[in-house]
């Protein structure tokens, strides 16, 4: 299954994203943002599944995103 790393504005958004995605049955973890995705320290959510569904959940939660990349 494909996975995606979505850089988020803060640890709070990362935790909120994790809660919302897991509630919807999507496997995910909070990780440090890789340096190729966004500068400075920050947190990302690594999620496995359909990116459109993932993005829709994050948007519905008002989660501020800073970048996205396909994971390995």
């Amino acid at each position, binding site marked *: 299954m494909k996975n995606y790393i979505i850089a988020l*504005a*803060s*640890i*709070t*958004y*990362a*935790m*909120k994203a994790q*809660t919302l995605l897991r509630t919807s049955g999507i496997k995910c973890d*909070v*990780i*440090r943002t890789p340096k190729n995705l966004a*500068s*400075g*320290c*920050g*947190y990302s959510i690594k999620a496995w599944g359909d990116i459109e569904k993932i993005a829709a959940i994050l948007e519905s939660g*008002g989660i*501020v995103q800073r970048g996205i990349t396909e994971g390995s």
Partner: protein
Amino acid sequence: MINFDNSATTFPKPRSVKAAAALALERYGGNPGRSGHALSLKAAEAVFSARKNIAEMFSAEPENVIFTLNCTHALNLAIKGIVKPSDHVIISSFEHNSVARPVYAMSKTGVKFSIAEVFPEDKLTLASFRALIRPETKAIICTAGSNVTGQILPFREIAEIAAENKLCFIVDGAQACGVIPISMSDGINVLCTAGHKALYGPTGTGLLITDGKYPISPIIQGGTGSTSVELEQPTFLPDALESGTVNTAGIIALNAGVSYVKRLTPERIYRYESELCRRFISGIAPLANVIIYRENGASYLPIVLFNIRGMPSNETASRLSDMGFALRGGLHCSGLAHKSIGTLPDGGVRFAPSTLNKPEEVDGLIHAVKKLAK
């Protein structure tokens, strides 16, 4: 010592709160939101869990729950972050100094303020707020319930007045949160409260909860663990208003306190503590030398202000302390409220029970007051 000074801070705390504080210090030692290692993430999860629990209780989004040192800190953030020098604000005649002093301090730099008189009848209180609105009015800032007499202000109706006039409504919920149902869905834009009072958290915890409609400029800038390459303070919440490491252990314990209140429900807490107040009033009201500051027609939080004629309030409180009862005399950091009810300069003695007080403890206090009031 039996504590009836729970309006200052609740004590003792529920067992679950004490256990959570101990567990936090033992197991949640990482700095939340500052690192990627497991200790840090575990602490961050615990802090977020508290944010989510509190957000659910007050009908807010988790990121709009800001942890502060206390209610005074939260009110200063809200008032100084929203009100600008050319603005006019309205406060009530029952305000604690945590509202009155920041507003007064800002009046020296151009902010204008008016004081709406609070009456026992809500319709008169509402009329006094309405009458003070001007074209340049930015906000109404008022308590949901007085920390001096316990009188509940008609905050839902004041919220309607604020909304009709496009004013920001900032509420001091220090005494009300946890005791009566109150939430952002009551039309509140910013709700400030203490964590250590009726939410049963430890001292050093407070909350600012916003609906996000009125941006709050930070009065403190610093490390947030986010957008660190930029010198500009983040504008998103909670980071904009939460610079520096948060009080992890305090927040985890506060979360346990909030869960305790949710389990009991504010409605049941209000009924139980109000019954303790009725018991106290019925015990001391027949005493000829006792004055109780309650008005017909008004609604009250479970707080009773009283005095013994001819005895300064601090002396009464001191003598009750010698007899094993903790009550607060004096002015309760609210000269405005005491002025409003005519108890300046001496103030009064405040009885404020918690969920952990027992009826027989109230009976003991009644007996002690009877001895002093002879």
